């Protein structure tokens, strides 16, 4: 036998299940704490997806129990249930699912998650997975025990029977696995459910921990997220290989029909234009195109302008609910949010939403907490490898009042940053769905969104600093200056000095300062008006006297009142300027009332009454 033939005998197909059995890290089961988190996450994602599809407000119960050396994970929902025939394949066949072939936003995509958990459970404990599901109140529930035949990637049913179950409908899954339960950090079952609750404010999540401690993440809205509809692929950014695949397997007979029916946003006119630009016959069958022709068609896609993909395939959380979600789990002084318009990468529509919480009880000296989500699923691991993180790191946060010690990287400050990317197909870096790949279109959108919320934060902070400056000045004027004046008079044994002029200077106010001097039976009165603000101040200054004044300088208007005279000057003082007024009155029996300023706010005037 030839060596090649000898070698050929050893070649054989590998089942997917066997492949994953040997490469469990790809699916997120590489460490003991992580196995529990991934398992809970996959089961909860399935429940949320199912509830949303059925229009039910999710109520999900998660329990982790210690069972000997292992842990038992129970996840139970109030979803629509699964029909009896489907149960074995949903839970015990890898790459089986309803979502892989549709372009629509959902948490699950490939049909791997929960079956991978079943596989891991069976590998580490040898025990079957138990499932109960009920699809209607009047029907019995179906109970089954399942394992995966890894060689064939097919379910094996150990037991299947009808049972009574108190729920009207829903699904319950119980798995036993090796693992270890941790708390008190973000990479934990608790932390991952908390994050899930933030972006799924319509869900109620209950967690019972191994020691019996119960945590409830209550729902904050009764309205379900907008339903996401399936769409056709969008021509922008589709790859050549993908296009050739679609051409070859199309059941359409004519190219122009193929173009119109296969892609979203392409109508009869665009289809015609594409064909003429590519120099192709619109009537030829799609599968007759050779490589060269497909290439021409592909470059024609890039030349014509098509409208954006339809938005209804995506279901964003929305600014209001992002805010509600953050408020629910953090105490914050300020929240900024933004939802970016829908954009496209490789034919897949996506959109980015960002929530930015600041202040409150967040740690001031540590790095900003980053919450990453993809299609409402929290991303817990591999923060450093994720496009969402990279976008945050490349923003120059110093321009937005947050410190960034090394000039790039995650900023430091009392803030929490929520980034959600929704797409019909999230480009993950691996099957364990930990990190979003560095797709340029995604990086650009996240960057724009971050800068938008950062600008809002900067505006908020600068408003705050104006306020605190004002408060600081108030403290100086009300508490400290009077004390200094009093102490000085104590030390020197003199009368307390008037702090008015200094107050006006510090506050940037208009100062009215009157002095009077007795001379030869007359009172010589001088009024000095200083503008310490940086704006022009226009106003009237009134001096109400019981007798007529002489030598009034500059000239004032006089209005006789019943019991005296109102002298007033119309003044306009540029910033930093001052003016001196003076007059003379007979000294006997004259009592001077406080000068009056008309036409300005009381808090910007010192030394006069304001009307």
């Amino acid at each position: 036998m030839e060596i090649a033939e000898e070698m050929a005998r050893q070649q054989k197909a590998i089942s997917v299940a066997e492949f994953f059995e040997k490469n469990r890290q790809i699916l997120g089961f590489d460490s003991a704490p992580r196995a529990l988190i991934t398992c809970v996450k996959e089961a909860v994602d399935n429940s949320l997806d199912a509830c949303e599809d059925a229009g039910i407000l999710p109520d999900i119960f998660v329990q982790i129990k210690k069972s000997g050396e292992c842990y038992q994970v129970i996840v139970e929902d109030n979803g629509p249930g699964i029909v009896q025939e489907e149960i074995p394949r949903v839970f015990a066949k890898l790459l089986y699912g309803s979502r892989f072939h549709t372009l629509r936003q959902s948490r699950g995509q490939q049909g791997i998650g929960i079956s991978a958990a079943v596989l891991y459970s069976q590998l580490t404990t040898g025990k079957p997975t138990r499932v109960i599901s009920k699809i209607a109140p009047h029907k019995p529930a179906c109970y089954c025990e399942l394992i995966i035949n890894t060689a064939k990637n097919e379910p094996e049913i150990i037991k299947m029977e009808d049972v009574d179950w108190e729920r009207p409908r829903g699904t319950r899954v119980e798995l036993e696995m090796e693992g270890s339960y941790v708390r008190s950090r973000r990479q934990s079952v608790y932390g991952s459910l908390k994050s899930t609750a933030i972006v799924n404010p319509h869900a109620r999540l209950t967690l019972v921990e191994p020691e019996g401690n119960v945590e409830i993440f209550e729902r904050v809205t009764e309205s379900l997220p907008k339903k996401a509809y399936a769409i056709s692929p969008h021509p922008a950014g589709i790859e050549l290989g993908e296009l050739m695949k679609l051409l070859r397997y199309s059941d359409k007979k004519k190219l122009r029909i193929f173009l119109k029916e296969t892609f979203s946003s392409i109508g009869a006119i665009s289809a015609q234009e594409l064909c003429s630009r590519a120099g192709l016959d619109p009537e030829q069958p799609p599968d007759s195109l050779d490589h060269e022709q497909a290439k021409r068609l592909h470059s024609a896609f890039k030349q014509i302008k098509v409208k954006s993909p339809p938005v209804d395939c995506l279901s964003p959380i929305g600014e209001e609910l992002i805010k509600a979600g953050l408020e629910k789990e953090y105490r914050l002084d300020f929240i900024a949010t933004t939802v970016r318009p829908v954009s496209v990468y490789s034919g897949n529509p996506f959109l980015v939403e960002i929530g930015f919480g600041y202040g409150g009880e967040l740690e001031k000296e540590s790095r900003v907490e980053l919450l990453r989500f993809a299609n409402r699923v929290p991303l817990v691991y591999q923060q450093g490898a994720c496009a969402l993180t990279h976008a945050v790191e490349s923003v120059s946060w110093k321009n937005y009042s947050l410190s960034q010690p090394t000039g790039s990287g995650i900023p430091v400050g009392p803030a929490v940053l929520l980034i959600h990317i929704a797409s019909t197909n999230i480009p993950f870096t691996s099957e364990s769905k930990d990190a979003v790949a560095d797709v340029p279109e995604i990086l650009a959108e996240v960057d724009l969104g971050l800068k938008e919320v950062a600008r809002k934060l900067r505006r908020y902070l600068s408003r705050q600093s104006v306020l605190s400056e004002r408060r600081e000045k108030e403290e100086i004027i009300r508490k400290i200056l009077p004390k200094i004046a009093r102490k000085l008079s104590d030390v020197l044994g003199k009368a307390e000095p008037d702090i008015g002029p200094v107050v006006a200077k510090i506050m940037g106010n208009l100062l009215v300062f009157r002095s009077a001097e007795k001379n030869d039976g007359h009172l010589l009165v001088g009024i000095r008006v200083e503008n310490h603000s940086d704006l022009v101040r226009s106003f009237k200054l009134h001096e109400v006297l019981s007798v007529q004044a002489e030598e009034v300088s500059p000239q004032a208007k006089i209005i006789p009142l019943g019991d005296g005279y109102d002298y007033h000057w119309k003044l306009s003082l540029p910033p930093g300027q001052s003016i001196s007024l003076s007059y003379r009155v007979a000294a006997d029996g004259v009592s001077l009332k406080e000068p009056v300023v008309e036409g300005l706010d009381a808090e910007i005037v010192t030394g006069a009454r304001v009307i």
Partner: protein
Amino acid sequence: MADSGNRKEEQGEKAVTEAAAASGGAEQRLMGLADSLYRQFQQGIVPHISLPSRTKGNIEFSIKDDVWVYGDQETTRSVKTVRGAKTLLKTVHLSELLIKEHLRNNRGSTLREIYYISENWDIAKFHEQAESDRLIEDLEIVTALHREDFHVRPEEDGAAVFGPLRLKEKTRRGEKEMHCQDDVGEAGYQIPFNVDNIEFLGHDAKMVMAIETGGMYARLIENGFDQDFNTILVHIKGQPARSTRRFIKRLNNELGLPVVVFTDGDPWSYRIFASIAYGAIKSAHLSEHLVTPAARFLGVQPSDIVDYNLSTDKLTDKDLQALRSELTDPRFATPYWDKQIRLQLDLKKKAEQQAFAGKGLDYVTKTYLPQRLSEMGII
């Protein structure tokens, strides 16, 4: 008995009148400070005090006195900020205390006591003693007086002298005369906080040696170094107090004795030497009063580590930082220090004075010091 009591009273009275004469000036200057603030209020000027800024960047060499003093950079304490306003309020409170309690009643307090007195000053209370100490230094600068003039004294720091020196000290209980070898215990004569109450009567010394650590001071006394080499030993106890520095300066100035400084071989010890020979950044306003420009550094030099093969410790990150900062300190900008500091940065090692003990208890007095001193041309 009654007689001696009377004599004490007489002396006490005499001291009081002398002090009152000096304090008259101090009171006037403090009142002047308060008055200038008062007038600022009256004239509508935002009240403020200007002070030279007390940083490394603002000390310059005064050729006139051979010492480092503050340059022209000024900082302003004004009531425009809460911090500035509070500092001014504290300054006024402190002035009142010094005028009314200290100067008018001829009483005094220690730095620590002043910190505690401020307990009753409401928002003008000091948060830590460093704050009140700094403010007193500010007042010294503004009034061009010394804290002794305000009757403010430091806590006892126990710096001591041992050597062939005869002196007379004016104390509250009369004048005391003593010889700093024959009339004192093993620890030596303790330097009082007001050194200007001392009069030097006579000596047989050829030099003054300032020593950083108590261990080395005791070693030199035990080995009879003061007798063998006619040396006045001054134990400076770490960073030397003002009184210690003033004492050394007077020994140098009035008796014309050369001064050498013997410390550990690390960056912190070079700063001790700098404060004796060049002046401290914190108290550069007193440089002319406290600094001995003729003082010379004896050791331990970084080159001694190599030459004498001393046992060493590794420099810590903080040590390295301090050394590098000394390279940019104008006080150390001499070829000698530049060479030594760079050598030490190279070695990454430091040595204590006590390292000589590794070669025998007599090594330092029989070998190292005689060698170094003749190298320096002192013996």
